Structure formats: C-alpha cells, structure tokens
C-alpha cells in the first residue's frame, strides 16, 4: 500500500517538474477522491491519474499516439526498468544482446507465487510500452527461450547478472546453432541461485 503511494508520488513529482506544482497537487487530490468513489464501479480507474495529457511545451498540435505512449510508459515504469532499454545509455547501464539476465515473474494477479528464469538475452525489441526481450538458456539439456514483455504487470523484476563480452550483433539467433560456451550450465546456475536468493530476501 505505502509503496504504491510512494511510486505514485515519484511520478507526480516527475510530472510536476514538467507541468508545475499546482497540477501535481490537483492530481494527488484526484487520487484520493477517485480511490474512494470508484472502488465498486463497473470500471477501473488506473493509478496514477494524469489529469492533463502529458504534452511537451514545444508541441503545438500534439500527436495523440505520442501522448498515449508517454503516459503508458510513465505508468508502467514503476521501478525504472526503462533505463535498461534506453539506446543512448552506456552499455554498462542498459541491457544488451549477450547479457545474462534474471527475470522474476508473478504466476498470476491472484496467486502470490513467482517464477524465475535466467538466460542470455539474444534479442531486444524496443517498442515503447510493448518492449520485449528474449532470454535463452539450456535447461536440463533442452534449449529454452522465453520472451518477456518488459512492462507487463506480471514481470516483477529484471536484473542483469553479467554483461556480455564479445557479442557484436543486435540479435544473437546464431546461438541456436552455434552456442559455443555461452550456455555453460555451471556459471548460469550459480548466478540464478544467487539471484533467486536475493529475490526471496527482497
């Protein structure tokens, strides 16, 4: 409960920097009233609500799809995972093809159980809110690929365990036929275990 308000506050602060402090206060009030009014309605009110569409001051006739994309990303980016997919960030900060990545997903919205998967990232599709990536690992001598939607509410955590070295392509589909030493079980297993243990603690 508190954490949800906390992230809402973060976004309101970010929003207020762009749009002025008044609107931030208004949106906060809106939050409080809407939660009370619309809990039993036949519709859902998303939190946080953006009272004014997120337009940039230089946009005189803003494009609807751009505004929608911005707002959707602001709402979905609860733990700053968008920094993993920014193209212009330094390679050490963003996810690249070849990195060993650990993903923890919720089994469902009603179930509290989680599933984790570790693998080498072989592809990243940057599509705004629809951004996704593919992780490949060899599990019990069977090659397994998992494609995750980065901003899905079921994806709880994305962590880069190890940066890839020597991968010169954006899409590493050649690893399906020529894996080399990429999927050596021991190293990945250890990393997965350590990541899973930190998840349980966290």
């Amino acid at each position, binding site marked *: 409960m508190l954490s949800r308000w906390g992230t809402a506050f973060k976004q309101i602060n970010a929003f207020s920097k762009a749009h002025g402090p008044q609107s931030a206060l208004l949106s906060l009030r809106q939050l409080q009233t809407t939660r009370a009014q619309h809990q039993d309605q036949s519709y859902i009110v998303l939190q946080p609500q953006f009272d004014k569409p997120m337009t940039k001051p230089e946009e005189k006739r803003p494009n*609807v*799809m751009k505004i929608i994309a911005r707002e959707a990303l602001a709402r979905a980016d609860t733990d700053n995972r968008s920094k993993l997919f920014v193209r212009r960030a330094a390679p050490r900060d963003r996810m690249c093809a070849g990195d060993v990545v650990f993903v923890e997903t919720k089994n469902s*919205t009603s179930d509290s159980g989680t599933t984790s998967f570790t693998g080498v990232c072989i592809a990243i599709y940057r599509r705004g809110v629809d951004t996704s990536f593919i992780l490949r690992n060899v599990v019990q001598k069977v090659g397994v690929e998992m494609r995750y939607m980065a901003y899905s509410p079921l994806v709880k955590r994305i962590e880069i365990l190890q940066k890839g070295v020597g991968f010169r392509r954006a899409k590493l589909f050649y690893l399906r036929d020529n894996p080399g030493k990429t999927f050596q079980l021991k190293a990945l297993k250890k990393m997965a275990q350590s990541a899973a243990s930190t998840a349980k603690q966290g």
Partner: protein
Amino acid sequence: MFSCCTATSKLTASFARLSLRQPHSSFSTTSAILKAKLPQEKIRYVPEVTELKLSAYKQESRRTGVIARKKGMTAMWDEWGARVPVTVLQLEKVQVISLIKTSHPSYARMQIGCGERKEKNVTKPLLGHYKAQGVEPKAKLFEFPITPDAALPVGTEITAAHFVPGQLVDVTAPSLGKGFQGVMKRWGFGGGRASHGTSLAHRTPGSTGNINPGRVYPGKKMPGRMGGKNVTVIRLPVMKIDTALNCIWVKGSVPGYDDQFIKVRDSIKLAKRSLFPEGANVPFPTYIPGQSPSLPRETVAKVGGRDPLVPATD
C-alpha cells in the same frame, strides 16, 4: 386519355390548370378519376427535441453512433495481467448536425458530423445545410438510425464519455485497398500444384463452369480489385475511455488506415450477450457534462470472469 400512371406533383398541377381552363362539366368524370389515383401526401416524422436532458435507458432504446478517427494501435494489460492489443479511436468535434425526417414515427435517424473543414472547401449546397443547422462545416457526415427517445438537439457535442468501458461496439470503415488481386488472395482459392509437371497454372482459378449451360455465371469469383469496401467488425469491447484526449480504446483491430473516419455504434448482434457491463451507468441519450456524473479522466474496462492464468479446477 391522359397517362396518369405516374402522377407526380408537377403533372397534377398541370392537370389542375387544364381543368380550370375548360368548362367544368366536360372534365368532371376525368378529374374524379385523377383524384382517386393521386398518391397520398408524403407524411414525414421528426422527433421533437427541445432540450438536452438525460433520460432512462431501456433495452429497446438505440443510441446514436459516433464518427471517430483511427489513430493507431497500442497494447494494454487488463486486470488479470493479460496483454490486450487495442486500437485508439479519437472523436474530433463530433456533433449532431440534423434530425432526418423518416416515414414512420417509431424510428428516427440522426445525421452526425465529425472534424472540421474550411468553408472554401465546402460546396455551396453543403455550406447552406450547415448554416441552416447552425453548425460549423464538418469533414465527414454519417447517418445513424435511433429510437425517438435517443434524439438529441442539433449542435450537441458527443464526447468519448458517450461510451461505457466494457461495452460492445460495432466498427465500420472501408478496408485497406489491395489493388487488383488474383483469385487465391481475393477469394481463397487453392490454386494448382507447385510441381509434378504443372505448367503455367500454379495460381490460376482453374475451371470456370460446366459444359451446360456452356457459359460463365455472372458473379463468378474471378481476379479483380480487392479491398476498399466497407467492412464492419462486430462486438469489439471498449477497453478504455479517455475524456481529456477524447479517445476510446477498442480491443483488436479496426479496418482501414490511420486517420480514417470510422463509424462506431453500440453492438446490434448480441445473441444473449449484454451490451453494457453489469451495473454500468449508461449515458442516455448521451453523456451531458452538467447532468451526467463526473468521470475521472481515464476509465478502464473490468474484464471480469475467471483468472485466465490460474488453471481451472473443474
């Protein structure tokens, strides 16, 4: 003597003039016959709407549709965490232009306009029509059949809040033009063999008929222009309504290209489904800002049902 099988108003007027000129007695029988064969006066009905007022929605009522513009597609996640592809349809200055006269009082028609157009680009007849109704020139006009209780006064603006999140809509628009297409793409024919000696007949239609009647039927499926025709996609759920951007997000895809005018109406072919979700406040005849309950900026549909990510126990 006079061919009066098609007695139009002009003909009757000319007959009337003739009968006045001649002595009354010689034309008395023919004028009686003419009167007997005159068509009934056209009676046309228009629902009387003076004020914009909310009223109760009944099962038999049919609200007006709306003209929206297809803006593009994105994705959203519903309450169960399942990804839903959506099309964004934006309402741009959608107004009631006129109430159309119909031949029966039980059904009415409304003309809805959308967008804007410069006066210099509007033809004089249309410009006169807009000025008579007291609205600005619109880019697109469409008619929608309604029940008389759903009639709105001319000039009423219809916003995205006219729709209810979770309701079903039918969406009509011309599909993307595909140009001149062959029979396999256009009609789904099987074509011929790819190999084993087939010569020059891999994508052909094959036979076009039988030895009797020895001709090809009109309407035989053949290559031709494909696409660009009106297509209606039915029962698309409205996933989200954005009152600030005046958009409705509709699940799935919608025919046509981006920025095209789309006719959106409440679903008709329901077959025991419910048009509106349970407990929804249906804005009837439309959402009126002063009278209808205020809505937050964005309202999202409750999908409901079972959690699809939890396996069913039974």
